[in-house]
């Protein structure tokens, strides 16, 4: 009951998912859509576990007065405020003014800025890693340099650089991507098969 039934469930669901790909019948598609709804419903209902975990981590930090515990108040109040804005009867749900403002003026700028830190990290990573230490590192360095230098006006050298950049993007870049993608495809199918057959079952834990 604890292991066998879940493993059978995995097998049946997996097998259906494989077979439906080849069957264009409406009825099959309906079941497929229905099962996708299941995953969504399970996913959202289990968000409660996430909320509980978040709550527990931060309340415990406060209780134990561990380092930086003061900031946990900020996280918890952000969470509670958003829930109140969104769920308080008559608040208007996702149309609520505060809910939307918190999204536009707190979430969006911080997330966008976090994303934009990549501009700096890409620079520091390039500085540190692009050293001609070995053949491999040198190839990595040269390819990246040619592509980046393409931006810089260099007079008569420019057409040569842009040709070289075009070639790199067109020939080795394509070959590399394709080899990786084919490998990933086989690896992923093998892993999914192992899950279906119950060979790979670590996700169930052990008793």
């Amino acid at each position: 009951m604890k292991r066998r039934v879940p493993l059978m469930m995995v097998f049946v669901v997996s097998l259906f998912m494989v077979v439906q790909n080849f069957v264009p019948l409406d009825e099959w598609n309906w079941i497929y859509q229905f099962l996708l709804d299941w995953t969504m419903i399970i996913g959202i209902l289990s968000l409660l576990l996430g909320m509980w975990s978040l709550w527990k981590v931060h309340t415990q930090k406060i209780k134990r007065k561990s380092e930086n515990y003061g900031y946990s108040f900020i996280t918890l109040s952000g969470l509670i405020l958003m829930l109140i804005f969104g769920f308080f009867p008559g608040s208007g749900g996702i149309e609520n003014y505060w809910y939307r403002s918190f999204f536009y003026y707190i979430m969006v700028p911080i997330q966008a800025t976090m994303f934009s830190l990549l501009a700096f990290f890409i620079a520091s990573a390039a500085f540190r890693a692009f050293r001609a230490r070995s053949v491999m590192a040198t190839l990595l360095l040269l390819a990246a340099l040619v592509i980046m230098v393409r931006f810089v006006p260099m007079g008569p050298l420019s057409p040569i650089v842009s040709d070289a950049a075009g070639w790199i993007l067109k020939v080795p870049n394509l070959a590399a991507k394709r080899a990786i993608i084919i490998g990933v495809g086989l690896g992923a199918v093998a892993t999914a098969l192992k899950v279906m057959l119950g060979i790979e079952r670590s996700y169930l834990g052990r008793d």
Partner: protein
Amino acid sequence: MKHKLRFAAVLLFLPLIFSPLLAQEGEEMQDGLLAEMQIEPPPQAVITVAEDMPNDGGHKLTVRWEFPKEFTSSVVRFEVYRAYSPDGEFVLRGESPNDFYEYLDIGDREEESPNYMPNDSSYYYKIVAVGTEGVSSESEVGGPYKTYGQWFHTGKVPLLIAVILFCIFTIYFVLSAKGGKELYIRPLAGIEAVDEAIGRATEMGKPILYVLGIGTAAEIATIASFTILGRVAKKVAEYQTSLIVPCYEPIVMSVAQDIVRSAYLEAGRPDQYDEDSVFFVTNAQFAYVAGVNGIMVRDLPATNFYLGYFAAESLLLAETGNAIGAIQIAGTDQVSQLPFFVVACDYTLIGEELYAASAYLGRDPLLLGSLKAEDWAKGILMVLMVLIILAVLLGWDAPREWIRVNL
């Protein structure tokens, strides 16, 4: 002038219309009158067939008709009408140019859709040839034509063969591995480094950070990462180091909790398991990164694992990890993120190596067997590629089409 004449003609033949037998005669005579005025309606189109489009659930029909080519210039366009019964209401479905005698009637599956076209139903079509002078002629009603869903998508035969062959390989090699056949597996630097990295954290008395990525629990990369997490957690339990697993998704978190708990149990230290070591951060991509980066700079882990599905956050995490001096082992199947892991991490499992790693770490013959199957598949693929290329170079293009999947 024109209208007057027509009106007169109609008046003249009005009594005759009441008799069905004579009515036709009247029309003919009307036509004769029109011919005199040189406004001849175009000839009728003749519906030949309406075929069900194959490989779908039965919501598409291709209507074909015949039309005398020499009259092309006297027609502006064809209008296609459809009804559920021969004398039902004909609804305009679309138009077709004057020299194209085919119309693909695409309907929707959803009943709520205004364009709903149920399968297993009969349809009747009528083609109206719209003439240049505003006179049009209707075709006879064609039908009934049926749409029906198919049980198998014929364009996917090569895909089906590929899937079945690969399944056979996998099952065969797994079974032979089970039989105790020794398999050689080439060493992978990223995997060899795992033990050393955990040992280093133990020596330094610092925690180990394990990031499962931002995929769901149904993502293959996440599933591969689960297995690796199991091995890492077991080692961590044996070495008595602490483990931090911040999660992006509650189901992934739940699974990770089960895995880590089992690993501690397996290592014989269930009491050491800290429930709060696997926790949820948030499911907003960059807020998650902000949180994990915060954990990194404050808890200063000695070793970071990034294994699973990653998007743009890969470099944000890896650079922060590098700045705090952690040993980093990464792996993802996302081709676009691999360059960043390769550049910023000490060891990177490239694409397929991530899937292989779960088998490596376990040294479980069952899991290793599938690696052999993957290798065989690769070998066959390479041979196939070379053979077909040779065939094409020799001017034989057919094999190239045999293996093509037509969706």
